[in-house]
């Protein structure tokens, strides 16, 4: 915990109302939510990189050769065109998911910023909302 010097203590005259408490709660909730969304976005980005690598490989690969495409945990031998189609479908689904998560992340950040402004205005140094 951070100790304030006595001169900085005059801030404690700001009483914490129920609305303030709810704002603090919301901030905490959004913070936790944002962190877990960012983690999942990282994972999705890695998957996307992998799929992008695959699409490059498929472009270079021989079109007559069967392609081993991973479904679940096992690989299925399928003709090149089918693999390309399936890859497109998977990539589209992944991008849609990534978009959705990024949108919720920005929404969280926006709300957090608003709450920060209000809470810092009222409590000043008596509250800490940053990492």
């Amino acid at each position, binding site marked *: 915990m951070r100790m304030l010097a006595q001169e900085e203590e005059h801030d404690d005259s700001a009483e914490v109302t129920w609305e303030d408490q709810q704002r603090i709660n919301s901030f905490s909730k959004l913070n936790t939510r944002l962190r877990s969304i960012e983690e999942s976005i990282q994972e999705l980005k890695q998957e996307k990189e992998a799929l992008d690598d695959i699409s490059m490989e498929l472009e270079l690969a021989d079109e007559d050769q069967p392609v081993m495409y991973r479904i679940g945990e096992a690989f299925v031998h*399928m003709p090149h065109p089918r693999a390309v189609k399936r890859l497109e479908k998977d990539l589209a689904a992944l991008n849609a998911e990534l978009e959705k998560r990024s949108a919720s992340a920005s929404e969280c950040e926006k709300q957090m910023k608003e709450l920060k402004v209000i809470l810092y205005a009222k409590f000043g140094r008596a509250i800490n909302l940053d990492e």
Partner: protein
Amino acid sequence: MSTTFTENQERNPRGIPKAPFIADVAEFLGPDPNPENALKDFQAALAKYRYMDQNLTQRRRSLEDKIPDIKKTLSMVEFLQERREGKKALGGEEGTDDDDSDLEENDTSTKPLTTTFELNDTLYAEAQLEDTDTVYLWLGANVMLSYKIPAAVALLRSKLESAQNSLTTVVEDLEFLREQITIMEVNTARVYNWDVKRRRELREKSEAKDGAVEGKGS
């Protein structure tokens, strides 16, 4: 003074008690304030909340591990189903508007499906799958059952849905818990600050009194 605020409290749908919000510290502590006891109670309640938080976080992690597994199994079974439907469409009709069937023709639908599957970690083997309408699903606890493909798809979908619903519930509970922990932490901070202020005021008052007494005496 309310030392037993953890009983007869409101609870959320899963039975997690709500933390009391202190509107006014002096009023909460009452006519005979005992901040040490209040702080002790808060710490005890915080410990309980943190323990619940740990449990829920564990459950959430295990659900988050299970869900991708179910998705993988489901996608494989759906793939098998698509293949069967593609073949049936070829056999029954002359032309379909599914361009997949064009690919199927090159695929020679009578050829079995070749897969490379994981025999062991880093060890893969090739297998040929014959056309089949049955799959076997591992249900855990050393139990495996055979299902027709549509039934397997239905079962996996329902498992996936219930896992996702549980995950949503657990996440909700975790957020609720986080709120209660925050409230308790804020309460602790305010009671502590109030106590520090009060002690300082008492000390200043008694010093002023001593000073006045000495002034009178000298």
